[in-house]
């Protein structure tokens, strides 16, 4: 299983619908300060059902919806869709591709969709846990946080290894 595509629409600085096609190897994301690189990592964490606002530098839902500018009106909602290649059957879903979508509105509500059908956050979490894809502290390392694994409590580090077990 691997990440096939990531669509951002109204998520943080990605006002326009933007699609990233990821290959199976290494994809590098480059650009000047403040261009939106870390926002892409935030989007990935967010669509996977991330609940820690701190990790995506948000205080409330509003912070992840495009705020607009003098030249462009703000978005009403943020939408991120992750398409996973499932041709190896890694995910217990009977389809070659699996899409997970999260939509957030200014009121603070989040809706989730699995292959286009409305789903609960819990369903997403269970599915990803089954697939060893999680918010695990070693799958997504945020900016400035590379040393954080060294300052975890010893028990937290054991949990990290349990996740890998």
């Amino acid at each position: 299983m691997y990440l096939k595509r990531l669509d951002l629409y109204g998520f943080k600085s990605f006002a326009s619908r933007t699609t990233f096609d990821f290959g199976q190897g290494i994809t590098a994301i480059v650009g000047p300060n403040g261009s939106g690189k870390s926002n892409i990592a935030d989007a990935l964490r967010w669509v996977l059902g991330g609940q820690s606002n701190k990790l995506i530098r948000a205080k409330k839902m509003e912070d992840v919806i495009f705020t607009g500018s003098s030249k462009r009106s703000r978005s009403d909602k943020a939408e991120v869709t992750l398409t996973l290649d499932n041709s190896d059957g890694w995910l217990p879903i009977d389809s070659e591709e699996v899409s997970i979508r999260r939509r957030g509105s200014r009121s603070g509500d989040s809706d989730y969709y699995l292959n286009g059908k409305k789903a609960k956050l819990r369903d997403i979490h269970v599915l990803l846990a089954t697939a060893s894809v999680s918010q695990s502290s070693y799958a997504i390392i945020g900016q400035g946080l590379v040393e954080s694994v060294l300052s975890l409590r010893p028990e937290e580090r054991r949990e990290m290894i349990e996740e890998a077990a």
Partner: protein
Amino acid sequence: MQRKLETTFKEVAKGFESYFKMFFGGGHARLRLTDPKHPMDSGVDIEARPPGKRTKSLSQLSGGEKALTSVSLLFALLQANPSPFCVLDEVDAMLDEANVDRFASAIHDISQRTQFIVITHNRRTIEVSDSIYGISMAPDAASRVLSMRLADVPVEAVKKPGSQN
């Protein structure tokens, strides 16, 4: 379950030592269970000493050394139980040129089994990637994306060496 944790722990510990020695050209690196008789309740301590040095605690390590020690554990986890993907946001920011090179080679190897998305300003890391996305901020405060080749990567996006005058 305990059996699985113990096996995984041994494997991660072995990988941690091996990556650390690759990055540092030697040295001492161990993961220790704080309570070997009860692994399920135990914590995990990290011992790490670069070659020829006698430092007692991780806090004495330099910024770059901490990053490499952290990355060694991260890579060991990925090897023991390949997470389908791994997102790294500027984890190579503190590394000197020689270490960026080792880091890039390491992710190149691991990318056989794990898909990487790396946000970076470092040329060597970009060189080992299979595809590159360039992000820029448009005047309307919305991010724009370009799929790029290595030759297209603009000079302003990446760091320059000191001696190429």
